[in-house]
């Protein structure tokens, strides 16, 4: 055969009869659910009422204004941002402790991880919330924060932390989430550190680096690079998990949705809309992280 002939085209991936049958049954199932809701439950769909809580047209000014659900989304994003920052700090420190020789540090970090992984998040959050909000925040003086203070009364503060009046409430949510997700990040970081070969420790110690420098210059950069994909996944999990802090009255998306559903009595529409919002949010991040990862892999060759 001539060496220059192009390679044969790969076989096209076609839907087989089985695939079509599967799709058809899923579609039928969805159609049947729709039929039940419409005909049997005699449910009055009213999307516009719920949608008004997303963006509302203000007839007085003739402008569209954001409403409760978008506020909730913003709070959810803030929770995810600060929760991730804190959880990463907790996770890197405790994840490192999981790998050290010092028995005390190992016991401490191990206990933390096991404790949090073996009680339901909701129970943990209730316990932790009542402890920090009743003990630590008054002691920190967060409850009587001056809303007109120089650091508080500006747009940057509002962007990063939301309404100053709700700051202690917001921080309680962030801390709960961070403590909770921190346990999972700890395990990711531990796995990352342990995935760095023994030879790297030895080579770094052999040139006389101090323990801190071995970690900072040699081990952690490699460990964190290995942990970035699972950390990105954990970030998305954190966005979803943030919905549980609605139960301690943090006014994030799920909390707002509960309010909207109660006010409008349009339960289906509200939760479908909110589900779609979570989906778009999380899936966008998943796509973004996937893209970043592919780019990083390419630049490293």
């Amino acid at each position: 055969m001539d060496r220059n002939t192009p390679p044969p085209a790969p076989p096209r991936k076609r839907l087989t009869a089985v695939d079509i049958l599967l799709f058809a049954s899923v579609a039928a199932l969805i159609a049947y659910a729709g039929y039940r809701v419409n005909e049997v439950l005699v449910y009055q769909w009213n999307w516009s009422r719920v949608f008004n809580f997303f963006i509302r047209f203000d007839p007085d000014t003739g402008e569209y204004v954001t409403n409760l659900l978008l506020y909730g989304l913003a709070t959810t994003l803030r929770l995810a941002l600060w929760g991730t920052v804190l959880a990463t700090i907790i996770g890197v420190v405790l994840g490192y402790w999981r790998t050290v020789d010092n028995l005390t540090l190992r016991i401490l970090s191990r206990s933390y991880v096991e404790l949090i992984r073996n009680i339901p998040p909701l129970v943990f959050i209730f316990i932790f919330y009542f402890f920090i909000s009743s003990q630590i925040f008054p002691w920190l003086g967060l409850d009587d924060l001056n809303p007109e203070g120089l650091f508080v009364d500006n747009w940057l503060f509002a962007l990063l932390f939301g309404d100053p009046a709700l700051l202690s409430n917001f921080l309680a949510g962030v801390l709960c989430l961070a403590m909770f997700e921190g346990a999972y990040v700890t395990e990711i970081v531990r796995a990352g550190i342990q995935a760095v070969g023994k030879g790297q420790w030895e080579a770094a110690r052999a040139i006389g680096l101090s323990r801190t420098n071995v970690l900072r210059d040699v081990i952690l950069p490699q460990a964190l690079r290995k942990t970035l994909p699972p950390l990105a996944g954990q970030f998305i999990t954190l966005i979803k998990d943030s919905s549980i802090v609605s139960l301690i009255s943090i006014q994030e998306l799920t909390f707002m949705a509960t309010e909207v559903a109660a006010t409008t009595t349009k339960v289906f529409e509200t939760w479908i809309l909110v589900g779609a919002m979570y989906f778009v949010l999380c899936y966008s991040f998943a796509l973004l992280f996937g893209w970043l990862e592919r780019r990083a892999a390419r630049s490293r060759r």
Partner: protein
Amino acid sequence: MLDATPRPLVQFRDVCKWYGDFSALHDINLTVHEGEKVVVCGPSGSGKSTMIRCINQLEAHQVGTIMIDGEEVSPEMKNIEKIRREVGMVFQNFNLFPHMTILDNLTLGPIRNRGASRAEARELAMHYLNRVHIAEQADKYPTQLSGGQQQRVAIARSLCMKPKVMLFDEPTSALDPEMIAGVLDVMIELAEEGMTMIVVTHEMGFARKVADRVVFMDEGEIIEVAEPEAFFSAPQSDRAQLFLSQLLGH
């Protein structure tokens, strides 16, 4: 007054080490003087790596004393980093830092340990990269180099700490045959410049050419110490004879 006898740089006195109940080193006595080149050989599992790793305390010994240039090293010692800087070590698997360029691999030690400026460290690094004949690779990453090149970088990285003694643990046994010569040449040059070297290797040509003494180990003990010619042509112990016949057999 001139002191004619060379100074002992590495001394083992009655050193023993166990892994759990397993005796890995037993009653090791060995003195390596300044400028001396010692080749260590012996069957797999005989404790060669363990012995040289005790020198910079990558492994801790339990009984006996090890002295580096007159200073005793022990697992509890405070300033072990200072000793390690005086002892260069080259590993079988190179162990370069994969997330750093070749240049950064070399400058890390001088910058962190001696507070050298980036420019100083860079100059030093380029000097040693020239000596191992791969200066043109300075900005690449380790995975972009061949095994032989990586091992030469690893040698240069150790040299950047200006060590008093260099340890090599089977530096060529992970290399493709055509890469071995380049690494051995660098080691021979280093030897000719007067570096004190302890080399675990089965490269008999290298041992014959460079070594002042060959140390033969088996089951955690030093069985025989001899000059290379004498050792390779007429080993005294049965175990060394057996080992050499197996080494030459294939």
